[in-house]
């Protein structure tokens, strides 16, 4: 999209099923110099929060979509003027500021210095100015300018202003137009603006049909508060003294929609099992120093459990399956989702470790650390959160000993791991006598979709998983 004089920055396609994104922060302002691939802005989609690198180098000459605004994929966000074209000064664009200082000297030297040189270097005087595209509309449909109030109403109702007949100057969509459009019910009647690319690539698309938020919003007229900015309108909603309201992030909106939909979809049942982790604890103690010294990786309990889970899933394919229409789809592979909470506990994301069956303990530990780190620093790529076939969530870090997590659709199972605690435990001594020993115990739950997975099957899965953990064989991993 670089035209020689400028580069256009558009809302990137953040994965197959993502149709829109919200600008959360501009990291550069108009007038700032930008290098190729330098982080330019942060965006938030219902899948990931991420930085967008600059697609070109030069000077950021126009920002067309403000922070807090949600736009469709492909919408023009900003324009970067090429380095030599950047300063608006028409005269000598290629001459740096120091030229002024050298000017007198040049004159003193007389006509030997060919005067017309600088103009020749900059033959077309205009293209530098950011005017050439006067109708670089915020909405990207190239049709009209969208006023702030129309943009806000459109975002609140998940309506694309480009689909509304405008009666304002030059066909502009006025506030009245959009309100009339919404009132007429056309917003709901219209087909979903962002078709989910399901049929194209069954594996990926089916694995993550987390519907983008806007269609959901479009079907619920009292729309949820819009993604980011001004808290004022949110606060309008009859706040009592002592109450305060904050706007909702795209991520929160996505989590909200997904959780509700999952509960509405799956028949959730949770079974729990107690696992004696003595062996794992002992092996981990041995490996810790070596792993950290040699690889810089911490072999966490989660890595052990993930490793054992992937093997157990191989024996219980229906736990690693999906109900797709009338078919039960099972896999030869495990794309393992790891639920990661973000800073301050107010965000949740599930990056996916692809082909987890390929990883040994070290690889698993490294991958988990990697996706968790990238989740927290907003460096996940769109495909990192897609295609999961089974998920592990680990709320035990805070000491909880049981939970009933919600399945990540369209998967059919989610494993919960809880606090590792020392407990008095009845074991048999060498003489076959029952004795009470102090053992590190962990509760592990499997929440499964009873539409597909029955209690006996889930119980067997958990029993085998326990077996693997309690008889962990160092040599096999």
């Amino acid at each position, binding site marked *: 999209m670089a035209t020689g004089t400028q580069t256009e920055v558009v809302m990137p396609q953040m994965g197959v099923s993502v149709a829109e994104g919200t600008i959360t922060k501009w990291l550069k302002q108009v007038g700032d110099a930008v290098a190729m691939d330098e982080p330019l802005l942060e965006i938030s989609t219902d899948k990931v929060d991420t930085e967008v690198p600059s697609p070109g180098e030069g000077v950021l000459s126009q920002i067309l979509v403000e922070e807090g605004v949600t736009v469709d994929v492909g919408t023009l966000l900003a324009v970067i003027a090429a380095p030599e074209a950047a300063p608006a000064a028409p005269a000598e664009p290629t001459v740096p500021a120091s030229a002024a200082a050298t000017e007198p000297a040049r004159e003193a030297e007389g006509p030997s210095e060919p005067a017309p040189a600088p103009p020749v270097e900059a033959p077309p005087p205009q293209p530098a100015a950011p005017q050439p595209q006067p109708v670089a509309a915020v909405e990207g449909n190239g049709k009209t300018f969208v*006023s*702030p*109030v*129309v*943009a*806000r109403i459109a975002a609140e109702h998940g309506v694309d202003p480009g689909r509304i007949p405008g009666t*304002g*100057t030059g066909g*502009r969509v*006025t*506030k009245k137009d959009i309100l009339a459009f919404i009132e007429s019910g056309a917003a709901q009647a219209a087909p979903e603006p962002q078709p989910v690319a399901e049929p194209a690539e069954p594996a990926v698309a089916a694995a993550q049909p987390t519907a983008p938020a806007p269609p959901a919003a479009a079907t619920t007229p009292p729309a949820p508060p819009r993604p980011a*900015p*001004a808290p*004022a*309108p949110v606060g309008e909603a009859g706040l009592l003294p002592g109450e305060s309201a904050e706007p909702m992030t795209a991520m929160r909106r996505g989590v909200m929609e997904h959780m509700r939909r999952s509960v509405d979809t799956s028949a959730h049942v949770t079974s729990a099992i107690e696992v004696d982790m003595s062996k794992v604890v002992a092996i981990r103690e041995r490996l810790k120093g070596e792993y950290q010294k040699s690889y810089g990786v911490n072999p966490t309990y989660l890595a052990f459990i993930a490793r054992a889970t992937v093997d157990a899933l191989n024996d219980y394919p229906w736990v690693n399956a999906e109900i797709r229409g009338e078919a039960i789809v099972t896999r030869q592979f495990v794309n393992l989702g790891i639920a990661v909470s973000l800073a301050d506990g107010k965000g949740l994301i599930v990056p996916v470790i692809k082909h987890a069956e390929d990883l040994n303990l070290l690889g698993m530990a490294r991958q988990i650390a990697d996706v968790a780190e990238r989740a927290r620093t907003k460096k996940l790529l769109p495909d990192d959160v897609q295609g999961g076939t089974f998920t592990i969530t680990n709320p035990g870090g805070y000491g909880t000993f049981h939970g009933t997590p919600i399945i990540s659709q369209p998967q059919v199972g989610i494993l919960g791991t809880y606090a590792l605690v020392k407990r008095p435990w009845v074991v048999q001594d060498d003489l076959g006598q029952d004795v009470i020993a102090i053992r590190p115990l962990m509760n592990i739950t499997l929440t499964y979709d009873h539409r597909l997975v029955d209690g006996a099957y889930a119980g067997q899965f958990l029993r085998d998983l326990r077996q693997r953990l309690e008889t962990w064989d160092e040599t096999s991993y």
Partner: protein
Amino acid sequence: MPEKTYLQAISDGLRQEMRRDPRVFVLGEDVGVYGGAFKVTLGFQEEFGPWRVIDMPLSETAIMGGATGAALMGMRPVAEMQFADFVSCAWDHLVTVAAKQHYRSGTPIPIVLRLPSGGGFSGGPFHSQNPESSFAHIPGLKVVCPATPEDAKGLLTSSIEDPNPVLFFEHKHLYRRIKGEVPDDRYTTPFGEARVHRQGDDVTVITWGAMVYTANEAAGRLEQEDISVEVIDLRTLIPWDREAVLSSVRKCSKVLVLHEDTRTGGFGGEIAATIAEEAFEDLDAPVKRIAAPDCPVPFSPPLEKAFIPQVDDVVTALRDLAAY
């Protein structure tokens, strides 16, 4: 309720307060024997005597200085400038002393400065100005600009009650031209509460003083074109009713700020900026301003007509906004 002119309402309100409170007294040029340049205080000296209706020498500095001293001693002076334009002579006492007195010493300084202002009658550059924004910029002063007889009386009563220096801008063009019902009983009109002069929902006009009538007439004409205009009369500039303005903006989403004062640095800029800051996401069109051009008020009637915003100007701007 009896109908009264804007001028009678001010006169009645002042007389009522002087009868009620012996601390209230009047001072100014020709306010006594002559009854004031516009006859607001006609008959006052006969009723209240020369010590409560004081004819001052031709010195606005002395009037303002005297009022300041009297206020500090516990009196409630109501000082008159013959024309608001002359208040510049009193600038130092008003702005440097009176406006800062409470901040410096914690003492109340209850002064009302009556300022006959505004043009429309070929008064020329010294007798037609609307200097309200100059004083709206000075912390410590309150600025009042009534448009109706009822508000003029009620706001004057509030001004006299207020413990701060209050600049009471009386629009000369409204004095005898505007009549309205005014209660005989004493009442106050609160500061910082705008009045909806006319309800509408397509475009909002924010204005005050004589321009309320200009806006209203323009709105009446546009009614025939099916454009519904809301006219908000701010009534007081300091303090001003931001909530009323913002809520009307949220309703109509298109705004015209209209004032008779000149454009650059006029109070309309403050209003427009506040709307942009606090109601940006409710705007469906750029905030428009209509004000006098940045030049002295001309003598010549055709030129003055070109200078002061006219109904036609407002109609055109509102039509553009409605169509935007």
